């Protein structure tokens, strides 16, 4: 060892080898996706769940992976946005529109072996109010009483009629838990769904395996791996080199050209529930001034913005309603791009000299749009300072919780979220309009026709008030191997529903 240069070469290598040997007994993380057999599927996604407990952990990533796949609900949304039976085979509504009676499937079991009964349903619904910590828990506040009439019959009485409640039962708050399976929700989810979590390689992928003895129709793929990519380019490369079969959410629409006009791939383009909102702080600072907010809306050239930052993919909406909701209306005419009008309004508002803090999260669409928004606003005479806040933690604390911002950009991806974002004066937008809230309340209690009329009025009101600016609606952009079938055109639910996928 001592008479030539070898000790040199040795140090690093030997240390590393030694360490590896020491650790060899542990099973290392795997992103093994080489097995792209007929029966398995690899899907590339962006945001990884922080854990599996969507009762206490915020974020769209957990229901995306688990809802309808691992957890089931009494009723579910189909791809067109209609409410369909799932664990409830049928249901009826009483005359006073306050009592729902659900007839449940007989043979459903949880992945821990327990049988699914009306008692579990009662337990799950009641648990939302007692144990959940998310903002969504308030959606069950309207429930007055839950009664398990028989193992297969459930009766839910509401405090007042609510159109929204049944819809919410299709989302994560409607997920059915086992009375004996909520001990380790964060790491070991127990549901009645066709898949169970087989393996979670934190920081990399989640593998779902088909369950034996699932009560419903057996899904095509025996094993589905959800693989998470922080970097959009890496995800594209993974599809190009066969590591994954599907890009579940294309985060770099600019690079779509790599897959279009290529017979090996299919590109799916539809709508989502994700409104990319230029949030304005209605509660304090320069954006408290209605004229200044209106000036912002006139200053933004939405078409040009979407063309530059999202490659022209997506849809211009002009308010907080996506086209898949029954009360959608095109409101893009309300503040048509007009730079001179913006300048004039800004002048009138008296806020012209103030610097706006545009505090955006470190997310691809926000970074891209932030650059464009800043440039467009500056061309209209605004002074804008752009800050990037790390997502999720820093952005959530600074903007979402403390409302320490003037403007921000975020995609509100929850379904039917006009109420949570604008209908609550404590939400970070700080939009406080009793008339708007009254409209929402009326919509919830009225007949279906009334609901649509009132929701339309509400959407128009919030847009007219310039409570925010709606940059565009995120497209549902998926790219997949050409033989993958069953991919939804529009993403209407919180779930990435794997049950309908197949291979031709």
């Amino acid at each position, binding site marked *: 060892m001592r008479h030539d240069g070898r000790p040199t070469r040795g140090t690093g290598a030997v240390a590393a080898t030694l360490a590896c040997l020491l650790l060899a007994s542990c099973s290392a993380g795997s992103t093994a996706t080489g097995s792209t057999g007929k029966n398995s599927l690899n899907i590339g996604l962006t945001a990884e769940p922080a854990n599996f407990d969507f009762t206490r952990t915020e974020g769209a990533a957990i229901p995306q992976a688990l809802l309808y796949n691992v957890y089931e609900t009494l009723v579910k949304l189909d791809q067109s946005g209609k409410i369909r039976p799932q664990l409830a085979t049928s249901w009826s509504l009483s005359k006073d529109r306050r009592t729902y009676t659900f007839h449940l499937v007989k043979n459903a079991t949880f992945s821990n072996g327990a049988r699914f009964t009306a008692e579990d349903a009662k337990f799950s619904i009641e648990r939302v109010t007692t144990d959940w910590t998310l903002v969504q828990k308030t959606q069950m506040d309207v429930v007055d009483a839950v009664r398990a009439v028989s193992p297969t019959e459930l009766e839910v009485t509401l405090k007042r009629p609510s159109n929204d409640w049944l819809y919410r039962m299709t989302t994560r708050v409607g997920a059915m838990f086992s009375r004996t399976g909520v001990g380790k929700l964060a790491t070991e989810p127990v549901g009645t769904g066709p898949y169970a979590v087989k393996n979670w390689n934190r920081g990399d992928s989640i593998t779902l395996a088909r369950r034996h003895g699932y009560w419903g129709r057996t899904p095509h793929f025996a094993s589905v791996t959800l693989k998470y990519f922080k970097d959009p380019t890496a995800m594209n*490369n993974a599809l190009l080199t066969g590591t994954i079969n599907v890009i579940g959410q294309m985060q770099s629409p600019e690079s779509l050209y790599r897959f279009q006009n290529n017979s090996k791939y299919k590109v799916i383009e539809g709508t989502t529930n994700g409104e990319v909102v230029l949030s304005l702080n209605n509660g304090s600072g320069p954006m408290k001034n209605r004229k200044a907010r209106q000036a912002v809306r006139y200053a933004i050239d939405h078409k040009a913005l979407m063309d530059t930052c999202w490659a022209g993919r997506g849809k211009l909406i002009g308010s907080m309603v996506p086209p898949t909701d029954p009360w959608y209306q095109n409101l893009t005419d309300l503040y048509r791009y007009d730079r001179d009008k913006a300048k004039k309004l800004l002048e009138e508002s008296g806020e012209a000299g103030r610097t706006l803090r545009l505090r955006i999260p470190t997310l691809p669409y926000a970074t891209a749009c932030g650059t464009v928004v800043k440039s467009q606003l500056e061309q209209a005479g605004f002074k804008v300072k752009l800050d990037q806040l790390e997502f999720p933690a820093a952005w959530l604390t600074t903007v979402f919780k403390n409302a320490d911002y003037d403007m921000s950009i975020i995609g509100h991806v929850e379904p039917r979220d006009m109420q949570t974002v604008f209908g609550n004066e404590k939400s970070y937008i700080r939009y406080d309009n009793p008339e708007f809230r009254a409209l929402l309340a009326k919509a919830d209690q009225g007949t279906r026709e009334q609901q649509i009329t009132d929701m339309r009025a509400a959407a128009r009101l919030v847009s007219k008030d310039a409570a925010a600016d709606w940059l565009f609606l995120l497209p549902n952009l998926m790219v997949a191997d050409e033989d993958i079938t069953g991919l939804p055109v529009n993403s209407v639910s919180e779930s990435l529903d794997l049950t309908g996928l197949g291979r031709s």
Partner: protein
Amino acid sequence: MIVRLVQRIGILLASLAVSSVLVFAFMAVLPGDPARVALGTSASDSAVAQLREQFGLDRPLVAQYLHWIHGLLTFDPGNSYISQAPIGPQLADRLQVTLWLVGTGMVIACVLALPMGTLMAVRHRKPSGLVLSALSQVGVAIPAFLAGILLITVFAVGLGWLPANGWTPPVQDPVLFLKQLLMPALSLGIVQAAVLTRYVRSAVLDVLREDYLRTARAKGLRPTRALLRHGLRNAAVPVVTVLALQLATLLVGSVVIERVFVIPGLGSLLLDSVANRDLIVVQDVVMIIAMAVLLVNFLVDLVYLLIDPRLRGGAS
């Protein structure tokens, strides 16, 4: 010798203690309440308070520090704030991945740099030496992640020879493992090799000028022979130092490379945990990296004691 050894161990332990305090203090000032982040923005204050209690965040800082150290020393760092899964196995997994990467990168760097640097020194006045020298300069100037992106563009997306990204443990599929390891290790290794080459060159040059080598050459030994027989051990001393310093660079360089190649190593764990304010994991990862660097420095000190007879005695 024994005295020196004891002294070195003492220094190592003191350094570890001080750096653990530094890391802990730093995390304590990090804005963003982990309990609040874990529960989401709309959680009630009482729920947050309850979780803070569960995490032990309501206890005095000293108690929290001692609890953390105790966990580290007993190899049971507890559960993550965010994923609520045990951290220990996760750290072991990630560390193993990163060590493969760094180890292979280091081997590649050495295999390239030692002969090239020596060659550059021996031929330092010839055109071939100058060309190598220029090459190494260019290599140093290229960011490792750019090298990675270029490799992916050419060999994965362009030619389709290698997978663009991902990671497979060697036990599961050795062939795929090697395929996936190659490009990230190369991106780390090439850039490090360029840096290392220059140190090897100057170390060998220094040695070449030493009297004993001149004597050996005067006695008729060819320069390369003379060097191999007498010189390399002396050249090794500075090179080992640089290697040790580079290990730190490689460990951190792998943070970027892991992002480029989507590798679930220590670096990506660090970035994820920082973004999620999973403080205890951040704390652990930072401490592991600091520990690794201090430990390697300690080993280098030991190697010095062995390699260089001049350093063994009391006074020089």
